[in-house]
């Protein structure tokens, strides 16, 4: 079995700050991490490998420093890592990204056929959740998104059964390999990398492909040129003109302040009191 897991290296948005003076993003010093959603997919791929044997290759389209993200995945147990990196990819939106990654996967498949492609559900810097479906469409892979559990994988019959999260419930879907799976978050717990694996990862020769080595011929489909969406502006959220009306606690009792607040709320929202009265206090 050969699984390819696509990952992205993203700035740790929890630590991103906006420069208070210039209103730009301060990228310096913000650590780059593996997109957290990708890790759920990676863990699932590694679990499949534990159960059924085979090989896990991690693939990333990104700048040279994305190599660190791939290394991290080798530390968790992936067998091989490919970084598709080229100036021509800069500025890619999701359409151009899925094109480049699909090409990379095809190239990897030339060495060993690929049975399942995993991607993360979405990225924390883009949130679009489009690259997985995009790759699937381009490669003719059966698409299974929002998967909460892989129920069964049969390599002989070439089938896979999954549970997929939908509104109000779970779909049980069965499809044929090869397929593309995006895992829902918190469906598994990422394993800890062992020390030997970390040392192995630290010195691992990550393969680096430029666009030719990735088998990409049509440059109009990658990078900025291949991106239909254009960012026309970036701006800070407009601060609200009115700040909160503050109710002072030191001059009145808590009880008085509470009653005062109630009056203000009900005056401001005329129908609210009636709505509350209609509810059965449970």
């Amino acid at each position, binding site marked *: 079995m050969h699984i390819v897991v696509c990952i992205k290296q993203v700035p740790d948005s929890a630590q991103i700050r906006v420069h208070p003076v210039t209103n730009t993003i301060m990228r310096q010093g913000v650590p780059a991490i593996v997109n957290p959603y990708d890790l759920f997919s990676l863990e699932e791929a590694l679990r499949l490998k534990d159960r059924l044997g085979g090989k896990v290759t991690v693939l990333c389209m990104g700048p040279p420093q994305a190599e660190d993200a791939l290394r991290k995945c080798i530390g968790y147990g992936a067998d091989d890592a490919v970084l598709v990196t080229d100036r021509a990819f800069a500025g*890619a939106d999701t359409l151009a990204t899925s094109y480049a990654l699909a090409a990379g996967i095809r190239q990897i498949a030339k060495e060993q056929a690929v049975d399942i492609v995993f991607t993360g559900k979405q990225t924390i810097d883009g949130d679009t959740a489009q690259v997985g479906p995009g790759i699937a469409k381009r490669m003719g892979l059966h698409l299974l998104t929002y998967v909460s559990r892989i129920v069964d994988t049969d390599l002989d019959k070439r089938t896979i059964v999954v549970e997929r999260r*939908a*509104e*109000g419930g779970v779909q049980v879907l069965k499809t044929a390999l090869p397929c593309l799976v995006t895992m829902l978050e918190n469906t598994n717990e990422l394993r800890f990398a062992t020390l030997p694996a970390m040392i192995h990862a630290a010195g691992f020769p990550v393969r680096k492909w430029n666009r030719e080595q990735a088998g990409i011929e049509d440059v109009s489909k990658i990078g900025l040129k291949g991106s239909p969406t254009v960012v026309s502006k970036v701006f800070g959220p407009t601060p609200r003109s009115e700040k909160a009306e*503050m109710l002072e606690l030191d001059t009145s009792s808590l*009880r008085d302040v*509470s009653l005062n607040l109630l009056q203000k709320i009900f005056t401001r929202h005329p*129908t*609210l009191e009636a709505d509350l009265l209609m509810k059965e*206090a449970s």
Partner: protein
Amino acid sequence: MNTPATPDKKPAAPVKKAGGRNLELPEHLKAYKGVWVFLEHDRGHVHSVSWELLGEARKLADKLGSGVAVAVLGGPDEPLEQFAAEAFSYGADKAYVVHDPVLLGYRNEPFTKGLTDLVNRYQPEILLLGATSMGRDLAGSVATTLATGLTADCTELNIDPASRALAATRPTFGGSLLCTIMTLAYRPQMATVRPRVMAMPQPQPDRGGEIVQGTLGMIETDIVTKLLDFIADANSNKINLPYADVIVSGGKGLKNPENFRLVFELARVLGGEVGATRPCVQAGWVEADRQVGQTGKTVRPKLYIAAGVSGAIQHRVGMESSDVIVAINTDPNAPIFDFAHYGIVGNALQVLPALTQAFADHLAMRRKQAA
């Protein structure tokens, strides 16, 4: 994801960059007209996000001087025409309806074919979908098939007057900034919006429209993915945060998980739901379904009471459309006081019980008066 252009401090007109990119709309795409909404439905009901989108679609179409249509796909016996009638009351002019056995229950292949066929045939300039499990699965496939641009999780949709293109605004970089994205040279311009981000429109019941029936042209043996079963969620324990009209939320300022009972107590008296900030969810204090914010749920209740919540932007974007926002925090400089309607600088552990008592007494008194 694009690298953003140089940030401006004031909103600016869209930038037409060179660099080998096509930013002019090709002649043959200028014929694309109309704003479409994909109607998402499940077991007899349309997902409210479709109505929220319809409200937005109507506004966009009016600015463009064009019409609004819905695309609705389903099984042979599903009440799609009823959904269409509802859609007309929410502002649609037309409904493209496709019945087919293979469309009973959502699957990516037939729905992607169904929607792309409709788009190719009737050529809308804008296509909107809800950012739900179904919507995201479908949108990515459709956009790639049509080789067009898709902007996800938009918080605002506008028409740029100069280019008449859709200007889709969404948060970026963890929510600290916003960016506006446009698809200038491709059609249709696609966008997804999360539930509750847009307001629910007012229905006009006597409004009518035109239904156009279509066919799919796929048979079951063509489709590899099979839907074996659907396991509905147990409803009794369901937390319905996005549609709650009263929400009391707790943040890390509550100091420890035991204090959340004060939040639950106030919510109980108000008949409301309990929400929380992401740090509380990550610390395991409450279930993930209670998370309000950019990576959690977007809510628009009539009353939102935030206790021990600092008001960081990632939380703010999930609840700032609430009608009345009350904030309780010990820190007078907490950002939440910048956008709440009412604020109390105090310890939530004391203020919450006092508020709970005040509401309970007031509502009890009112009920007695009414009886």
